[in-house]
């Protein structure tokens, strides 16, 4: 049923007929739109067998898998480094000493404000790091690290105050409170948010295309220009889009699954809504 039925009265017989008419019109409109798109695709010859032949060649398949592996490599390296960088920054931001807190906050603000493209350009063209892989991974690490730092911080701050107060009351030190009491609980609550940010990170690996990192889009661009296959740019875009959507949906599903499991768990702690706000803000 609708998420907010309260917006509408429960439909009576007249409303139901009206809704059915709307639905019919809607189906026709959507079908017409889709039909137009598909007709344009077909009419400009995008569905011709010749333009899809490339998929049968083994070397193309191998190259496509290689490109996919490159995308995943940048994703994996970027994700691990971003988590580490984020943990360090979050520790800095949660520190009691202003000398650590202020620079950490400045770094987080800076990397969140600069577009990832510019960061990657700085490393690739500014510092000439050579292999585009390093520039992509460094850019992903710095930008997403700053975002992860905010997520970690929000996760720790969203725990009820009583948790840390009780820990201090039984004589724990600051590090003990953080490591034994706050982090284990915060991590549980943060996990779904972290995985959703991973989706963003995975999507951002496509920016490697701009600096000719040999990832999926780069290969699509190359193969899409080959006359022998009839320049199959659109079929390739469709295939690459399907790959990305499948990978991202998998991660999103994982995030939702973790979220559901966390809420059901006995260890679930009611945290305030700052964490959700944080997610929206990201």
């Amino acid at each position: 049923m609708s998420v907010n039925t309260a917006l509408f009265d429960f439909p009576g017989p007249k409303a139901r007929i009206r809704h059915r008419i709307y639905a019919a019109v809607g189906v026709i409109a959507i079908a017409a739109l889709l039909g137009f798109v598909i007709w344009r695709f077909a009419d400009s010859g995008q569905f011709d067998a010749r333009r899809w032949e490339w998929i049968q060649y083994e070397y193309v398949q191998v190259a496509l898998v290689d490109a996919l592996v490159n995308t995943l490599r940048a994703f994996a390296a970027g994700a691990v480094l971003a988590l580490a960088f984020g943990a360090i920054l979050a520790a800095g931001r949660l520190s009691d000493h202003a000398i650590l807190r202020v620079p950490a906050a400045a770094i987080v603000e800076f990397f969140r404000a600069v577009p990832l493209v510019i960061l990657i350009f700085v490393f690739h063209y500014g510092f000439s790091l050579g292999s585009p892989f390093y520039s992509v991974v460094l850019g992903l690490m710095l930008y997403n690290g700053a975002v992860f730092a905010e997520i970690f911080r929000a996760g720790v701050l969203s725990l009820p105050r009583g948790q840390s107060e009780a820990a201090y009351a039984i004589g724990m030190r600051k590090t003990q409170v953080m490591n034994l009491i706050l982090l284990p609980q915060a991590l549980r609550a943060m996990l779904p948010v972290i995985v959703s940010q991973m989706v963003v990170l995975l999507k951002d690996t496509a920016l490697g295309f701009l600096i000719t990192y040999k990832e999926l889009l780069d290969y699509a661009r190359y193969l899409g220009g080959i006359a022998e296959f009839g320049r199959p740019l659109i079929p390739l875009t469709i295939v690459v889009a399907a790959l990305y959507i499948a990978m991202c949906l998998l991660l999103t599903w994982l995030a939702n699954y973790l979220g559901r499991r966390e809420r059901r768990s006995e260890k679930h702690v009611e945290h305030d809504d700052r964490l959700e706000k944080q997610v929206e803000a990201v």
Partner: protein
Amino acid sequence: MDVLLDNTDIFVRGFRNTLLLFVFSAAASLVLGTVLAMLRVSPVPVFRAAGTAYVTIVRNTPLTLVFFFFVFAFPLLKIISQDDYTPFIGAVIALSLYTAAFVCEVIRSGINTVSPGQMEAARAVGLTFGQTLGSVVLPQAARSVVPPMISTMIALLKNTTVAAGFSVVEAGAIRDYLSERGESVLVGLLWVAFIFVILVIPLTLLQRALEKRWSVAR
């Protein structure tokens, strides 16, 4: 400093186009996003499904891929004549369609934060659907919509730089011109980064101020 002062023409041209891209795409995505949000809360299941499908597909597609499609692939479909179709238009279309999915989610979750009791009470005193939405739901939803909407717009502003890879002359493309003139690319890029910080930080501060203010009022 020299790199900035000697090449002011490029910087001004680049950032002017960035802001133009931003303004056009922001307007288009706000309109399209609102329409999508309306679809997603509609009582007709087909509309809801269509809205959800759009948001799911677009949110899980990299922006670079959307650009790739609308700059390289879209002209091949020959829907509009190729002479009128510049990369700039392609960039506006790509940014608008991409951002609209996020705008839609912000508006929808804003409407969802208004407690059902409010809507039920409005219905109970006999307000019509339009009145319920206009006088009760939207004024309350605005409080929880505006701060995340500013975040979405900040993301859009930063995302305009992706267009640099698709032959649109904007802030991200300043680098090309600097290296042609033999200027230091690193310094130039750091200036670009710095200008973005100047553009984004006030928006971030505004967003936080509104968030704080309105979370107290609730």
